[in-house]
Structure formats: C-alpha cells, structure tokens
C-alpha cells in the first residue's frame, strides 16, 4: 500500500454567511489548502467534493463549480453525499484513488451554507422518505432524538445535569482560542446550567447550532509534494461504517427502534472506528487527540464509549477527572468541537480532519495538545452512516 499524506489543509471560518455563496467560501478553503501545501492547481489530479444539498443543481455538482473557479483541467471530479459524513466519504474516495495508483495528488473538499431557519423535511412523500413522518406526525426536530438517548443514559448511568453542562464549559475554553470558531465565548458551569431548556434534559448551550463553513484537504503520495509540505501528516486509516442490525439507537428520521439490542448503540460509528483501528494497527489507547461529533453533550459522552475510549457508563468519570481535556489522557475536541463551530453538514467531517492534522503539525498555539502523535476524527451521519480517520506523524 502506498503511503498517503495530508500535505495541505484549508478552511473558510465557520459562521453565518447568508450573503456569500458556497462557491465563494469553498474557493477560500481550497485556495488556503493549495497555499498550505505549496501545490499548484495543475498538480491536483482528482477532486472529490461534498454535495451541497441546498445549492440546487450547482450544489449537486459542487466539485465542477469549484473546479471552474481555479481552471478546468479535465481531471475526474466526483461529488458525494453521506449526510453529516459527506466529508468522510469524499476524503475516503480521495485516499482510495491515490491508494489504487490512479493519481498521486487529490483534493477532498466540503462546503455548506445552511438555509435560513430550522432544517426540515426535504420531500413530502412519507412512503419513500420517512423523514416526513417525524415532522408531520410527531413534531420531532433533531435535538428530540438526542434528548431521548440522553434521558436513557441518565437513567442507566446516573449522568448528571452538571456532567452535561461541563462538556460545554470545557469545549468553550478551546473555542475561545480557535480563530476559525463561530462561538468564542467561554462559559461557567452555572451559566450553562442556567441556560434555556430546549429539549429536556438538553439545554440551549448543550446542543450544537447549524453553521456555514468550508474545508479542504490535499492528499498526496508524490514524494516531491510530501517532501515540500510543512510537517506532512500520514493517513493511517480512513474508513466508513453503516449500522448493524439490531442497533437500539432511535436514529434521526426514524420513529421506531428494536426493543432488544443485538448491536451496540451508534453501531455505524462502532463499525467505522473498529475498521479504522484494524487498518491502522492501533487501538484507542494509542490516540492522543480525538475530534468527535459533539452534536450535543450526550454525543460527547456516548462517543467516548462507542469508539472504545472507556467502558460503558465510564465517560462521565473521564470527563469529571479531566482525562478528556488537553493535558489529560485523551484531548477531546481541542478545536472547540461542534459546540464552538456548529454543524456545517457537507464540510464538518473534513473540518475535523483539518483540526486533527493541525494538532499533529503543532499549529494550535494556546490549545496545542503537548506531544500529539496520533489523532482521530470521528463523524456521525444520518441513517446509520459514519466515518473514521486516523492520522499519524
């Protein structure tokens, strides 16, 4: 197998940019990645681009639109959508294209400008899109799903309101020091615990917002490009997983789940992470930095278990003991997480990889994880859909 490295990364900061187009912010991310890598546009031999579902025809062929800004060169441009794991899919395809020897250097990019107001059903046909059912029949926005799982966890393991609030307190310290974050305010436990109750037991500051942003990564196996790069980061694994039969998670969009579990909760993420450990030949104990999908405080806790960083019901203790903080056993979301950035569906998985690679390249200043050698980025997408990327220096 060829050794494949990240040689350049680029972002457009996260925020709300309703007057910008996905093409404009995507262009910024790609230009930054090219500059970081010192790679010429003509040396990019393939593009894997996240489909931007709110962008009409253009958004569905986002890669071609972005290519035309930099100059069309006739290379393969493939667009892919896997909900919140879209970026994982693009990255994995870029990796596989290089691994197969088709090309030496490829670009993975993801862009999102979320529509105004709440996200809602995108079709009106319940027979093929069960998403319609949860909106029309049960009034269930996404945080309802997170709250239902969170309540179960609280009953099972004694997760406290304070644990849920502490996640935000910890992450807000990092977000405040990350120039690309949307939310830069720090919070105390008391402030979080007094914030508005949104979806009991989850408060406003314990669920993530929807944001706009763009992220790009340039991967290469070309010895010249790798040599030229500033501290290239090796990709030890980039995998995707789907759910396992009998997963008891009430998945977003669904209105039912099996009563008797025959598979782990969040089995798609269990699947992706275990594939990645196997491919990388390492285990969770070897990871220094973890970017996990903290859509809510519940996700933060649950993902520590799902990805094998602790046993069932032990995540709260890791958090309380400071083991998940910079300087602890495992630095969790030293970027500030979705908590400080918000979700940008098509872009967030690539953003996580950008943040994880920046840690390994020692670029994170005040929120730098000391001596970080191995990092993992874990995504969570709709309908049992997940990606894991493990990076090494």
């Amino acid at each position, binding site marked *: 197998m060829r050794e494949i490295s990240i040689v350049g990364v680029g972002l457009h900061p996260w925020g709300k940019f309703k007057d910008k187009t996905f093409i404009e912010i995507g262009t910024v991310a790609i230009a930054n990645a090219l500059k970081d890598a010192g790679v010429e546009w003509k040396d990019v031999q393939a593009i894997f681009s996240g489909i931007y579902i709110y962008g009409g025809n253009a958004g569905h062929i986002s890669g071609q639109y972005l290519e035309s800004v930099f100059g069309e060169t006739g290379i393969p441009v493939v667009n892919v959508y896997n909900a919140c794991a879209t970026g994982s899919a693009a990255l994995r395809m870029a990796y596989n294209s290089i691994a197969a020897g088709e090309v030496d250097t490829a670009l993975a990019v993801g862009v999102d400008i979320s529509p105004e107001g709440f996200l*809602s059903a995108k079709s009106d046909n319940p027979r093929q899109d069960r998403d319609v059912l949860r909106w029309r029949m049960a*009034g269930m926005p996404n945080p309802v799903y997170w*709250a239902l799982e969170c309540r*179960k966890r609280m009953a099972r393991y004694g997760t406290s309101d304070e644990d849920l609030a502490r996640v935000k307190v910890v992450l807000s310290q990092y977000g405040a020091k990350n120039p690309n974050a949307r939310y830069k305010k720090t919070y105390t436990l008391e402030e979080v615990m007094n914030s508005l109750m949104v979806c009991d037991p989850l408060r406003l500051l314990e669920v993530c917002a929807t944001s706009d942003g763009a992220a790009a990564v340039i991967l290469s196996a070309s010895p010249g490009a790798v040599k030229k790069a500033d501290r290239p980061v090796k990709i030890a694994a980039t995998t995707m997983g789907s759910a396992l039969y009998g997963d008891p998670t009430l998945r977003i969009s669904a209105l039912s789940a*099996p*009563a008797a579990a025959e598979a782990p909760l969040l089995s798609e993420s269990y699947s992706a992470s275990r594939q990645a450990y196997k491919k990388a030949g390492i285990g969770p104990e070897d990871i220094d930095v973890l970017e996990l999908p903290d859509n809510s405080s519940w996700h933060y806790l649950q993902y520590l278990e799902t990805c094998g960083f602790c046993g069932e019901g032990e995540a709260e203790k890791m958090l309380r003991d400071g083991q998940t903080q910079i300087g602890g056993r495992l630095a969790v979301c030293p970027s500030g997480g979705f908590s400080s950035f918000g979700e940008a569906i098509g872009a967030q998985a690539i953003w996580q990889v950008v943040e994880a690679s920046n840690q390994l390249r020692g670029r994170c200043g005040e929120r730098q994880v000391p001596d970080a050698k191995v990092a993992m980025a874990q995504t969570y997408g709709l309908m049992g859909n997940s990606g894991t990327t493990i990076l090494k220096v």
Partner: protein
Amino acid sequence: MEKTQTQKARVPALPDLFDFSGDSVRIRSARCGSCGTYFFPEYHAQHRSGCSREGVEPVLLSNSGKLASYTIEHYMCPPPFKTAENISPYGIGLVEFPEGIQVAGLIMESDLDALQIGQEVETITYALYRNEEGQDVVTWAFRVLK
C-alpha cells in the same frame, strides 16, 4: 339529495400508520415471518441480513406499552408539523411495546414533569388541527395509564 354516507369525524394526517376504527388505538407495524423483525411504518421494510423476506404480515401493536424514554420540547416544531395552536412545551415519548419494538410519538399529558421511564402508557389519537371539511386531523399519541 340525501346523504348516503356520514362524513368521518376524524381523519389521519397521513394514512396507514395507525388504526382507530375499533375501541382502542393501535399502531400499524409489520412483522417478517422469516426473520422475525418488526418494523414501522409497515411500508418501510427492515430485515435481518440474509433474510428471504418472505411472509411479511401487517400487525397491530398492543394498545399499551412502557415508556422507554421521553423528552419535553420547549420550542414549537417548525412546519410541516401543523397544529391548531402552539402546543409547546410538549412531550415526546419512546414507547416499548410487548411485541419487541419501540415507537416514538407525542405524549399528551397535563403534567409533563411527572413523566418517568417505565410508566405504562396507552396509545391514543391526538387532533392536530381541524381541516376545511370540519374534520379533526389526527396523529397517534401516548398517555400515561392511571
């Protein structure tokens, strides 16, 4: 002209999801005779890997089950959720039926703070709004059994 049919007082917001023709309200599930999987709604099939998918039969779930989890939504759900008025805060429950499937839905309870995991609940209908024909447009919902 004489009316030959009396107009129904209640119509479902979407068809084929629950049955309220009898004395009790029952959620319409389906069961695969080959792999035993229950799924909901009955038109979104799910099977165990390798199943022949033969012998799928519609099943009406029991009228009552146990509350497996719940939440209180403090903000009104955006469209296409449609109700006659703003019902927030409102309860949503995940109910475990004896058949071996959990189903989510609105909880209609005056004291949402008294909800507890493990409570016995029954399936009822809830009138979301009244249509132009004067009929109640209903969904399924849950209520704590006293």
